[in-house]
Every structure is written in structure tokens, then in C-alpha cells.
């Protein structure tokens, strides 16, 4: 069973992470979903695959009425990100899912149509949530060719999708990164293999380093906070990625 844990709260504005599902089937990768709530407006980031939908739904229900979720955000098109869309629409046909314009005609394979999908332009956009604003920040080619992160300037939280993801062993599977050097070892293989473009990576690092980020929240693994955020950005900027590092030839 997944659990919901509040990671930020300021009045009615809050971020809740739905994480750690020991009961999930081993064949399915564990994911973090984040609920952003503000004055009754609810947005869920990367709501996950259909097989984990019951667990996400149930964990959310301890915090809000899941039927009241109005917005979904899909950082990209992967099945672990958004294949539950059809089920969410089943619960609330008025739900709107924000996703890169690149995927707005692909994602309906998981459910939904032009009314349920809102296409984010390549340059990104901002959107109001309750009395505040959130921003869809471009992170193309990291790893998907149409890829966005979500930034909440008031909470100073960046939801970074697959960037920052780590495949931690169960004994080190903490909600927040505690020992950066130890943790980052579990992120290295993933970033080398999944992030294909040095140019895109440096572009993102440059942009992220200019943002005020208290927490960097990936879709898999632990959350980076405080100084670990900048540590991560610097580590990522240095990390060799792309085809030249990929030993696929026999």
C-alpha cells in the first residue's frame, strides 16, 4: 500500500507525495506521485501506470477526495507516467491532463481525447492553480523528446520527472536523500542510460541553477532538498551521458 505524506504546507497550499509501495508487483517500477493542492484546486503529477492506480487512488483518498482531482500533469508519455489516464477519466470525465504537444495525439491510446488533453507548447507555459501560478518548464530530451518539469515558485519545489531518479535498494529507500554521495550512486546508471543528450542536459542544468529550488522531486527515488539540490545539478552537469558513454558494441 502506498502512503501519502505532506512535504510542504503553507495555508491551504500544499504538496503531498504518494510514495513507497511495498505491495506493488516486482515487475512494475515504483513511482512517486505528487499532489499539489491550493484553495481546492488539485493537480496530480505523473499519476502513474494503470496497475498502480488503485494504490495511488487509495493513498490520495486519505488526503483529498480523489474524485475532486481536476488536473493531471504528465511530464512525458511513458506508461509508468500516464497509462492510468483512462481510469482517472472514468472517475472524473472533466479532468484535464497537461502534456507536451508532441504527445497529445499519442496519449489517447491510454484514454482521453482532445477535450481531456491540454497541449503544452515547446517553450512551456504557466497555469493558475488556486490563487497561485505553476510553471511547466521545458526539459526536452531528458529523457523524452517532449518533456516538461513542473515548478511551483511559491513552494519553491521543482517536480523533475525522470531527472534525479534513482533506483535505490530497499534498505536505502528513504523519502529524502540523506547521504548525497551514497544516494547518487543509485542514480548514475539511470542517468547515463536514459538521458541521451549532453546539450539538453547542460541546457537544463543552466536553467535549473537559476531557479530558486528548495526541493527537487523526481518521479522515482528520493527527494533532494536544501544544498543537495545544487549538488545534484552540479553532479548532473558533470556526468557524461549520450551515445559516447554507451557500450553497446560487442
Amino acid at each position: 500500500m502506498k502512503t501519502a505524506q505532506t512535504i510542504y504546507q503553507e495555508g491551504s497550499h500544499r504538496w503531498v507525495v504518494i510514495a513507497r509501495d511495498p505491495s506493488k508487483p516486482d515487475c512494475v517500477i515504483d513511482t512517486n506521485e505528487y499532489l499539489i493542492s491550493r484553495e481546492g484546486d488539485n493537480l496530480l503529477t505523473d499519476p502513474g501506470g494503470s496497475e498502480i492506480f488503485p494504490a495511488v487512488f487509495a493513498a490520495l483518498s486519505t488526503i483529498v477526495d480523489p474524485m475532486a482531482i481536476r488536473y493531471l500533469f504528465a511530464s512525458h508519455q511513458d506508461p509508468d507516467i500516464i497509462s492510468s489516464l483512462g481510469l482517472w477519466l472514468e472517475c472524473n470525465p472533466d479532468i484535464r491532463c497537461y502534456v507536451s504537444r508532441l504527445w497529445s495525439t499519442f496519449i489517447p491510446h491510454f484514454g482521453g481525447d482532445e477535450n481531456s488533453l491540454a497541449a503544452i507548447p515547446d517553450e512551456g507555459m504557466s497555469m493558475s492553480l488556486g490563487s497561485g501560478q505553476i510553471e511547466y518548464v521545458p526539459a526536452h530530451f531528458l529523457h523524452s523528446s517532449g518533456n516538461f518539469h513542473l515548478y511551483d515558485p511559491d513552494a519553491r519545489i521543482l517536480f523533475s520527472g525522470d531527472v534525479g531518479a534513482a533506483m535505490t535498494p530497499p534498505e536505502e529507500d528513504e523519502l529524502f536523500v540523506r547521504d548525497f554521495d551514497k544516494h547518487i550512486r543509485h542514480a548514475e546508471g539511470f542517468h547515463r542510460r536514459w538521458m541521451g543528450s549532453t546539450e539538453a542536459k547542460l541546457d537544463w542544468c543552466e536553467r535549473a541553477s537559476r531557479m530558486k529550488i528548495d526541493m527537487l522531486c523526481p518521479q522515482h527515488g528520493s527527494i533532494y532538498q536544501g544544498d543537495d539540490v545544487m549538488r545534484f545539478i552540479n553532479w548532473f552537469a558533470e556526468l557524461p551521458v549520450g551515445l559516447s558513454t554507451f557500450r553497446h558494441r560487442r
Partner: protein
Amino acid sequence: MSNKPTHKTSSGELAGFVRLNEGIKGVVLIAFQINIMALNAILLAHRAGEVALGFGVISKELRSLSVELTALMQELSNDAYLAVNLISDLLRQERRYRLLKKATDLVANPSPALRDVMVRREEEFSLITQRVREVRLRLLDRLEDARKLCQFGTAISRSAKIEAAYGREYGRALAEVSQEFDQKIQNILPSIEALCTGMQRR
């Protein structure tokens, strides 16, 4: 509710309708062979003239029988296609139902809105199940028609054998053709029977 989605039934049904489609292809092939054979028989009867008048009439009957059988099989195939579509939809719905049900069971106090979603799911499921049932009944009716058609075919191919006996110098050729007719029709009947039992078993 009696119509709770069960994945096992639907995938079994799907396999049944796919098999039906394969069976239909077999029958259509034999019907085509009968058609060609009957055409040749009509020409042969024409050459034989007076002595094969009856044989010619029977061959024409067999030819229209093959056309009718082909049309019937086409209708069956359309229905089987429809059924496969409906059941695929059912399978998809079953998966969604299973996941929504699991979510509802995990939630401590499911809201009335969530309960409504489940009720709608079940209603929709019953509706499609009902449509599959209707298609199956229609298929069985058509299979029954096909069976009758084949029984009629058996009877007239026997008459063809008798008519061949009056064929004088063409007697041998006509007897051979009538023998082949009989064999082909005998080949179709078990296929039709198999299709019927395959459908009724559910």
C-alpha cells in the same frame, strides 16, 4: 449483480469466435469448390443433351446452393467480427472494472460519486454482455439455416447419382461428378455441426 465482469469468460468467448471465423473460411472454400464443380457439371450436362436434362437441373440447384451458402457464411463472418469487437471491448472494460474495484475496496469510505462510477461500469458491462448474447443467438440461427441448406444439398446430390444412371455414354462421367458432389457436401456438414456445437457450448 449477476453480470460482474470476469476476464476468464470473455477471453474464452473471444477464442470461440476467432475459431468460428476460421471454421467459416473452411466452409467458404468448399462452397467455392462446389460452385466450380457445378458449373462444369452444367456444361457436361449440356453436352450430354437429352439424357442429362435432370442432371443439369440438379447441378444448377447445387450451384445456387453454393452461392447461398457463401452469402450465409459472409453474414456469419460479419457477426463473428462484430462479436470479436464487442468482446475485445468487454475485455478492456473488465480490466478497468477490476482496477476501479480494487481502488474502491482500498478506500476506507468510498464517496457516492465513486459508487456511481462502479454502478455505471456494471451497467455498461451488462449492456455489452447482452449484445454479445444477441449476436450469438443470431449466429446460431444462421448456422441452423446453413445446416438445413447442407441437408438439402445431401438430398439433391443423391438425386444427381440417380440421374447419372440415365446418362448412357455420359453415365460414367456424370456418376463421377455426382460422387464428388456428395463428398463435398458430406465434408461441409461436420464443419457446420462443429461450428454449432462450438457456439452452443457457451
